[in-house]
């Protein structure tokens, strides 16, 4: 599937002497996707340092001297995606998979989620079972909330990252390397920023699991970056730290 999108973020900067941002906003071409064009527009991007981070991602360090007011970041690009049944395989700059068995503060295991799960029945089946459980366990209270007392539909507080962290924590507790993945997901006419998981299998390599949607990412997912957890994979980290969440829009563009 050919996907063309534009992602715009607006941040209030204040007026520091220097501002610095660490970007994880550049997708790699993988067996699941071919990046046809990609660009980031923001003040200072022309002089930015581009480098590979510890998790194999393409990262940028962007700085501004005496910036004023608002920082606008616009990412636009075109990617062709392929359905590989979720299998990413191995990427050239991936660190050792064992690294992704490291538990972090955000990826705590929930014993209930892994109760009775055993790798004996084959890892792929186990991971699917885990995705199912996470989807049910995390998603269930949200549905109850939606049918709440006021009787009107309300936005769930749940973010894709809650599903991803629950999955990762459980997988790591089972000694299976699992990593946090950011990207975009396309749902018919709309696109949104999203997060899912990749888990390791010695035979197939990295396999994607999207517990929020309860499916393995296929043509609908554009993969940006991977890391230990949401914090280590934030699309933009900044100093001074932004007080508010950015105002952002993701648009699908016609080819």
């Amino acid at each position, binding site marked *: 599937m050919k996907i063309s999108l534009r992602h715009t973020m607006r941040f209030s900067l204040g007026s520091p002497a220097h501002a610095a941002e660490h970007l994880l906003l550049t997708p790699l071409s993988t067996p699941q996707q071919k990046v046809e064009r990609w660009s980031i527009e923001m003040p200072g991007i022309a002089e930015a340092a581009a480098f590979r981070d510890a998790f194999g991602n393409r*990262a940028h360090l962007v*700085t501004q001297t005496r910036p004023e007011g608002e920082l606008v970041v616009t990412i636009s690009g075109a990617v062709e995606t392929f359905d590989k049944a979720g299998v990413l395989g191995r990427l050239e*700059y991936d660190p*050792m998979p064992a690294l992704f*068995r*490291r538990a972090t503060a955000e990826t705590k295991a929930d014993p209930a989620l892994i109760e009775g799960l055993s790798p004996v029945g084959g890892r792929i089946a186990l991971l699917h079972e885990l995705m199912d459980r996470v989807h049910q366990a995390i998603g269930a209270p949200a549905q109850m909330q939606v049918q709440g007392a006021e009787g009107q539909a309300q936005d769930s507080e749940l973010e894709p990252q809650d599903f991803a962290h629950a999955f990762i924590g459980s997988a790591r507790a089972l000694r299976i390397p699992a990593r946090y993945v950011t990207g975009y997901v396309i749902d018919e006419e709309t696109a949104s920023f999203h997060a899912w998981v990749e888990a390791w299998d010695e035979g197939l390599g990295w396999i994607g699991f999207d517990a929020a949607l309860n499916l393995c990412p296929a043509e609908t997912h554009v993969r940006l970056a991977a890391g230990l957890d949401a914090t280590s994979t934030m699309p933009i980290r900044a*100093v001074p730290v932004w007080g508010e969440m950015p105002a952002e829009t993701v648009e699908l563009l016609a080819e």
Partner: protein
Amino acid sequence: MPGPSPFDEMTNADGSVREPYLILEQWLKEQPPQALGLMAADAEGIFRRLGITFAVYGSNEGTEKLIPFDIIPRIISAIEWRRLSKGIEQRVRALNAFLHDIYHRQEILKAGRVPEKLILNNSAFCPEMMGLEPARGIYSHIIGVDIVRVGPDDFYVLEDNLRTPSGVSYMLEDREAMLQLAPDLFQRYKVAPVETYPENLRRTMESVAPAGAGSSPTLAVLTPGIYNSAYFEHSFLADQMGAELCEGQDLFVENGKVYARTTMGPRRIDVIYRRIDDDFLDPLTFRPDSMLGVPGLFDAYRAGNVTLVNAPGTGIADDKAVYTYVPEIIEFYLGEKALLKNVPTYNCTDAEQRAYVLEHIAELVVKEVHGSGGYGMLVGPASTAEMHDIFRAKILARPDNYIVQPTLALSTCPTFVDAGIAPRHVDLRPYVLVGDQIRITPGGLTRVALTEGSLVVNSSQGGGTKDTWVLEE
């Protein structure tokens, strides 16, 4: 102290004087009765005027103390030194190879020689360092190895300090003071120089400058500021090697490069000897609340535009729990047996070993895995039954947080105290520089426990220092 009297650096059990100390003994005999007392007083004046002080944690902020200096040098023969330095060199080679491996292919973990969990789940392991290729493949450029001696040929490594070992300024100033106080002794001995350290530090740093830094890279020492206990050392080293002494606020990152704010505008910095802990180095990558660091510094490092000395994440190789595996690490990377011994260490997470520890705690030394400076440590034979109980409870509550070792009979060295010259326990920290070559400064810092019978030599716990002489052949 249990057991026979410990090995003395100067005097054998039969009362005869060991060869390296013969001239010193003669010299001591020649001194008039008051001379040593006067020398000690002079020494204090020299140190105080020069402003060599350290801050003591837990006391009032800004309280400064002098580390007591003992005027009787500790002397090491050329043969002893050759053995020691071979062992040290072997260790720093292996530990740098280990760091490169665990931040790349992790072969030693795959081979099962070191438990994967111990490394990858360790808080001293720095995942952000994965895949980074430091200049010359070196992670720890500045190392201080803590060594104790229990017999004529019996040396143990207590700790490999691969993060930011301190104390080298005392090594240099102790020598300076000794040259002023007892010039005649230096005429009778051939003492290997330690004054070369700052120049060698400079060369080491230059040799790991990033590509494109040119033939004369700009060096900086990054300090947390004057309230840090080692500020004197930071300014001293910067001065001695001609580097800029910077605080975080003096540096900034632009276009992926690091600059100092100077009176003439920004100046590019190529190599930074950072004396700020990993967590505080860069709020963009590590602790976001750090006011000490430089935003973007780590990314500039990853982009290959600056070299950090030592690299972040070196703490994994001197972690007290990893320490037990150093002989294994040496064998794995160098195919050699370790030349210097490790102190046998009990692992409290093992039920059998824990039982032994709890029963024999009165004979053992208990250390916190992430502790340093002698804080949070128990020396069994020197503690009360009440303290033993407290530490038993601590070990039971968090067995993984402690390592336990037998109490070593640290060697003693004659020391000038109120009552005259008396033996006091000492250790030794030689300083190693790793760059285009491995340079070990002949000598190091001898720390001495000034209280009779005490085995704790840390300056924060009332320890002093001695000038350390390595004799030339």
